[in-house]
């Protein structure tokens, strides 16, 4: 029903030399009723992209549209906010001085429901939807656990009658034993309400569990995206492979495979790039195990920025021929 579309979105913070382009020309579609998982490391711009979609970050170029209509955030003209967001930290995302019932009620569009009785009933319905008893409406956030707060945050997002929900690292502040219940809830709600969803996480396994489509971001750009099984099953961008190899997965013992090749090792130990000064050419080349630092003949990576016209829309010049790289013993490659 609702499709969230990013067209060449660019977000720039600051001006002049201290300025930084956090999101640089991102095209991404969140198809109706589907979950798009967005992964990347800190500084990749994934949270900025999410904040741009709800108007918390300035879009300096490009368009964000919902079903073809540009999203407007400034005006008070429309009381319904079709894109809602759930934040990472459940301890700062709820006003400590407001009962959770009030917090949820506040997010119900004023035009949608008039009368306090109707609004109260709606709050009860929403709390029930996220598995919280109606009696909890009078509790303050301080009386709830992290997992319960995240449920409240979900209820508040749903109160805005959204067509798209953006979930920004919503489980990373939670203990593992709680994480599962929140993920299950997110999945149930998404299927039950047929929501479109942009699900952001640094944890590939979590993203894999909830997402239909996966997009990988690196230094402000999407470097690979496609159906989850393609991106994870046959990753084409070396960064996606790196992420997969680093994924916390007890089945594979990564650390026993210490590379003996000094060049590869130096690359594996390279520092993350600086978003203020993205490298020329392919932005990933200083860390790329199949790039110009390992294979000198691949000098085009140093100067030419790869397009997305490769399998899995991977932004890599060698997306189709990476398998020939030396010294890579990862069974997934």
């Amino acid at each position, binding site marked *: 029903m609702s499709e969230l579309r990013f067209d060449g979105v660019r977000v720039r913070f600051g001006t002049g030399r201290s300025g*930084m382009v956090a999101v640089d020309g991102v095209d991404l579609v969140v198809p109706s009723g589907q979950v798009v998982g967005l992964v990347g490391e800190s500084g990749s711009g994934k949270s900025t992209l999410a904040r741009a979609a709800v108007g918390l970050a300035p879009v300096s170029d490009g368009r964000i549209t919902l079903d073809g209509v540009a999203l407007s955030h400034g005006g008070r003209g429309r009381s319904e906010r079709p894109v809602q967001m759930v934040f990472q930290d459940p301890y700062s995302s709820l006003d400590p001085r407001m009962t959770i019932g009030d917090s949820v009620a506040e997010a119900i569009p004023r035009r949608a429901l008039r009368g306090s009785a109707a609004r109260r009933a709606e709050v009860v319905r929403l709390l029930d939807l996220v598995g919280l008893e109606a009696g909890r409406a009078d509790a303050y956030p301080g009386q709830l656990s992290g997992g319960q707060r995240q449920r409240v945050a979900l209820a508040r997002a749903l109160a805005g009658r959204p067509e798209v929900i953006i979930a920004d690292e919503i489980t990373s502040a939670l203990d593992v034993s709680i994480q599962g219940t929140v993920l299950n809830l997110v999945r149930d709600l998404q299927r039950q309400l047929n929501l479109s969803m942009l699900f952001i996480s640094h944890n590939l396994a979590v993203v894999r569990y909830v997402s239909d489509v996966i997009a990988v971001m690196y230094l402000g750009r999407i470097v690979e995206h496609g159906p989850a099984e393609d991106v994870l099953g046959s990753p084409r961008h070396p960064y996606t492979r790196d992420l997969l190899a680093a994924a916390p997965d007890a089945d594979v013992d990564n650390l026993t495979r210490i590379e003996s090749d000094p060049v590869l090792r130096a690359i594996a130990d390279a520092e993350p790039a600086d978003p203020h000064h993205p490298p020329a050419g392919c932005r990933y080349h200083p860390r790329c195990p199949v790039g110009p630092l390992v294979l000198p003949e691949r000098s085009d990576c140093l100067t030419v920025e790869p397009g997305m016209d490769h399998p899995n829309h991977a932004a890599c010049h060698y997306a189709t021929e990476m398998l020939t790289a030396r010294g890579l013993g990862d069974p997934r490659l």
Partner: protein
Amino acid sequence: MTTATATPGALRGVVESPWVGFVLRRLRRLLISLLVLVTAAFFMIHLIPGDPVRASLGATAPQELVEARREALGLNDPIWQQYVDYLRNLVTGDWGSSMTTDVDVSQIIADRLPATVEIAAYAFVLIMLVSVPVGVLMAALTRGGRGRRTELAFTSSSVVIAAIPDFLLAVGLVYVFGVSLGWVPVAGKSTVESYLLPVLALAIGPTAVLSRLVRVEMLTVLDADYIRTARAKRLPARWIYLRHALPNAVTTTLTVGGLLLGGLVAGTVLVENVLAWPGLGSTIVSSILSKDYPVVQGIVLVYGVGVLVINLVVDVALALLDPRSTIRES
């Protein structure tokens, strides 16, 4: 994000050194503040309801005298003309003359300024010498909830002392040392002993405030993770206090110390009046009371510039002491 922003700043060469940007920013702010100050001083006279000259000379003064004085002060020119003249005169050192005594304002300031600077400087040195060691010591004794009695004694006594305004302290000191004990002269500037009362009156309050602040700041720093790291290195306690904690507490201490110094400049106004100290402070009050506006204008400017210079010095000192400050400012 901050991590990433920090790295390249240092990697780039001297050309793009953060210092250049820091100095430029700081100069710009100083200039803007100066302009605001001068403009405020200029408009001070024009914002006074009614005719300042008439108010100054009194209702009985003949109209011709008022007119003549207005003309001499340029008050009949258009306002922008007056403003430009004012700026030009300031730069050339012509700060006008007193409406009551006709002495040059710059002359009055030159006569009175040294006495004020003297007591402010001595008081500042005294404050720093006492409050930093006391604050560090108190932090060491009361951290982590120990020494609750010491903490209570220190906190309550410093609160009480800090609640006494400096002019009342001056009165109290006059009573104790001057009237009761007769050790020192109660007013005026004469012998070395005559400095004792004004300097003490100025220093005692800020010392209480600053030593409290040093303690609180030290306690915060002692809670920091890097202090735990230092403890994990099994460094001696004294070393941890002096080498790891104090440098990190110095930022706030110095910032507030600078504000205190600026405040000291203002504090001299009251203390000088109590003790009849022949500085700028007693002059500005008598000038306000006698509506001698050019003198007031001049002294306000001097005080303002003094405060701005102190702020500048503090900022530069902070930048030198704290490796993060130049970058944090941007």
